[in-house]
């Protein structure tokens, strides 16, 4: 069994851009150590016979005003330039990370003071500060880069603090606290491995800027100790002879750009892959480990039941997981008609969520559609769309205007830093670019009202964390119906809500179907919800639809053992089971 997922570095290196960037970085590292040795000629040797020459066989990049070989000077200068950048970043790391972590635990006074100091440092411009420091401590590269390092430290302070602050509020760190774990242990077990990729990204970017700064400083003559070469010094001496050699600054300039670009590209690659960790439980395996009975029953799928005015038609849908290794959905077919509420029920691992994700084109990496068609049927005005054939751009015209999607956990689908009203306005304007901001705002408020949010004007200005679970789910429903879709797909949309709120949201969904003639596909594990809301039920088990029919019939007289199991599961903890008077269920006020 695979236990650990590969580190962000290994994952980043699957990208071509990251590999090229790393190649360039390695080359620079080699040059930094051995540049002087590898240089074809002595970088300090002057030759007045070949002053200011263009590129030639002997001098690939030409010679400077003292007849020194430019390529050799560039190569030999790498070490000093890189060392200067590393010094600055190293100091920044040390002065930033440790106080950043400390600010989480050392109490409010320390936190307040450190934040104010950091704010003050952030206002200082690098170059001016470095010039001032060298004016004080003498013109050396070390002093200049120490100054730069001090100014880089706020970046590390903030990045570390932000990353760690988020983590210390996670439940697993809370749990560790409840076990009586020491702070050092919490840092080592839970925080460190998660902050590290962030620090790596920051370091790559900081190195790139430090290289630029060290070159700028050398360009200004700071920390330059002639005749020793650095990139910035090369650039500045080239500029003096610009009239004779207009192309000369190109080479050091290009080299600086190349390495800064490579570092940034590398940082991007780590960041992109670092955040894209999608939890991917293998549903087939899940199902087999949870229940091993009834293997011989219900193995064959049952056919499609035609409906009037179908909006969605799924035929023989097959989905593989584990990168194509295992088939988890084995040929599912069904239709959803206009104004109809269809429930897709099953235990976790039954393939219902995979089916739903395949229909919405949102399969997680490693999962793929292996065969079958999903068709969105239009009416007189709109032609049918084969969703299994379309590309990403075409999906953007489907999700929203044609299919609205509501997920289980509304909070994680809303951007926490933007008021919910703004998020709805954005969605509306993506689909209708002609709409003015004011008109979009009015529509948002109307939509909020129509999903039963009281005081829509206030909600419009609120942030997601200010909303209760039920309100957030209503906001998500408002966003889902803002494109006036034909089909609404709700994936466990009410499972996380408590009973009173769940009842209200189910009422809202029922009303939307009735008023707007929507088709609703409700994916849920809860047969009670299905019994309450749905017209028709599809029962999913181990990647197949094993039973379907009108909700009332399926719930009252299931023909399949899998359905019966679901029912029993839903009933066991209902009052009335387990020896108590069954009539109680119906007799509640």
């Amino acid at each position, binding site marked *: 069994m695979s236990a650990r997922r590969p580190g962000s570095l290994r994952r980043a290196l699957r990208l071509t851009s990251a590999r090229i960037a790393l190649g360039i970085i390695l080359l620079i590292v080699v040059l930094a150590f051995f540049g002087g040795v590898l240089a074809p000629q002595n970088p300090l040797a002057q030759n007045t016979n070949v002053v200011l020459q263009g590129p030639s066989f002997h001098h690939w990049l030409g010679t400077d005003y003292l007849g020194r070989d430019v390529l050799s000077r560039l190569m030999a200068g790498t070490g000093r330039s890189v060392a200067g950048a590393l010094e600055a970043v190293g100091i920044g790391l040390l002065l930033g990370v440790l106080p950043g972590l400390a600010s989480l635990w050392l109490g409010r006074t320390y936190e307040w003071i450190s934040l104010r100091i950091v704010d003050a440092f952030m206002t200082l411009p690098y170059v001016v500060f470095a010039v001032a420091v060298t004016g004080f401590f003498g013109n050396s590269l070390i002093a200049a880069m120490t100054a730069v390092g001090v100014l880089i430290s706020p970046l590390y302070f903030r990045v570390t603090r932000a990353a760690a602050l988020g983590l210390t509020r996670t439940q697993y760190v809370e*749990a560790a606290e409840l076990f009586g774990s020491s702070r050092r242990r919490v840092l080592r*077990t839970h925080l460190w491995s998660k902050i590290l990729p962030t620090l790596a990204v920051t370091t790559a970017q900081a190195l790139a800027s430090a290289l630029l700064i060290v070159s700028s400083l050398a360009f200004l003559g700071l920390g330059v100790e002639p005749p020793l070469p650095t990139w910035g010094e090369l650039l500045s001496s080239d500029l003096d002879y610009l009239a004779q050699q207009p192309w000369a600054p190109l080479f050091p300039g290009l080299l600086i750009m190349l390495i800064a670009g490579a570092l940034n590209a590398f940082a991007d690659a780590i960041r992109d892959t670092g955040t894209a960790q999608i939890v991917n439980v293998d549903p087939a395996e899940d199902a087999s480990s949870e229940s091993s009975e009834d293997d011989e029953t219900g193995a064959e799928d049952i056919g499609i039941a035609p409906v009037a005015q179908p909006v969605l038609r799924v035929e023989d849908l097959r989905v593989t997981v584990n990168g194509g290794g295992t088939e988890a959905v084995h040929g599912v077919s069904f239709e959803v008609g206009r104004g109809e509420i269809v429930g897709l029920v099953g235990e976790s691992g039954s393939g219902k969520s995979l089916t739903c994700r395949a229909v919405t084109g949102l399969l997680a990496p490693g999962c793929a559609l292996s065969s079958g068609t999903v068709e969105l049927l239009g009416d007189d005005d709109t032609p049918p769309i084969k969703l299994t054939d379309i590309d990403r751009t075409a999906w953007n015209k489907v999700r929203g205007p044609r299919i609205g999607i509501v997920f289980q956990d509304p909070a994680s689908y809303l951007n926490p830093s933007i008021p919910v009203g703004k998020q709805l306005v954005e969605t509306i304007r993506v689909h209708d670019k002609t709409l003015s901001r004011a008109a979009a705002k009015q529509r948002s408020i109307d939509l909020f009202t129509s999903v039963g949010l009281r005081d829509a004007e206030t909600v419009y200005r609120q942030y997601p964390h200010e909303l209760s679970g039920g309100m957030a789910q209503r906001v998500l429903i408002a966003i889902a119906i803002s494109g006036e879709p034909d089909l609404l797909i709700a994936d466990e949309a009410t499972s996380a809500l408590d009973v009173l709120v769940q009842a209200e949201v189910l009422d809202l969904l029922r009303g939307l179907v009735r008023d707007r003639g929507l088709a609703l596909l409700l994916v849920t594990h809860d047969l009670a919800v299905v019994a309450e809301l749905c017209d028709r039920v599809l029962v999913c088990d181990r990647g197949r639809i094993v039973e379907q029919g009108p909700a*009332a019939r399926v719930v009252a007289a299931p023909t399949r053992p899998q359905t019966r199991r679901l029912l029993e599961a839903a009933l066991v903890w209902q*009052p009335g089971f387990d020896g108590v008077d069954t009539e109680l269920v119906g007799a509640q006020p």
Partner: protein
Amino acid sequence: MTLLKISDLTVGYGDRHTQPVLNGVSLEVRPGEILGVIGETGSGKTTLARTIVGLVPARGGRIDFDGVELSALRGKGLREFRRRGELQFVFQDPLRALDPDLTAAESITEPLDAAGVGNRTERAERAAASLAAVGLDAALGDRLPGRLSGGQRQRVLLARALVTRPRLLICDEPVSALDAANRNHVLRLLLNLRDASGIAALVISHDLHSLAGVADRVAVLNEGRVVEHGPVRQVLDNPQDPYTQRLLAAAPRLHTLTTLTTASTKEPVSS
């Protein structure tokens, strides 16, 4: 004899003038007893659980655990009490309560590591025993949370709480993230544990029905106060408080199926 005694507990966020989230709550859990606490979002039930274990400070009242005044413990004393592991908290959402970078076994040994119990082998053995106690295969110990199903994750969370052999579990919505089959499985597990080792539990839920089969007594929480409180059958069959009645009525029920309910009880339950 009581194991956990909560007296007149008042908790509020913000300064003293804001409306308290919990207002004079008094409850008791006896050894080997399962107490259910029910309420909807905003009733203060999660705050209650978090205050008991010390994640939220109390504004007034006191909490006693087996002769120790929990609400008075601070700093080192609190940490030492926690390391004894007599009181464990089970979080609602196992995906968030388990570090995604630690294997199930690593997470389960964490409380032992923190307390410095035994050597590495002994801790690993206790983790394996704990996994077995919640009905999970030992091989699952090597998996990361992302590679476990929801039901398995919740059981890992339970195994982690059980590894210190606690006398009381505080469970915050332990099953509300699970589907019906897994929910029943976890609740049965809780019952079996109680019968086998005499562990007591305070189980928080928004769903009265999911507590019906496990809890001995239930307390109904509404707007920070206990509005009703008694043996589970009494509260379910004959709710006195109008809020409890409303809560019971709002649950989606399979009311069309009372006939089937009687029929299906006669068959053995397969899972």
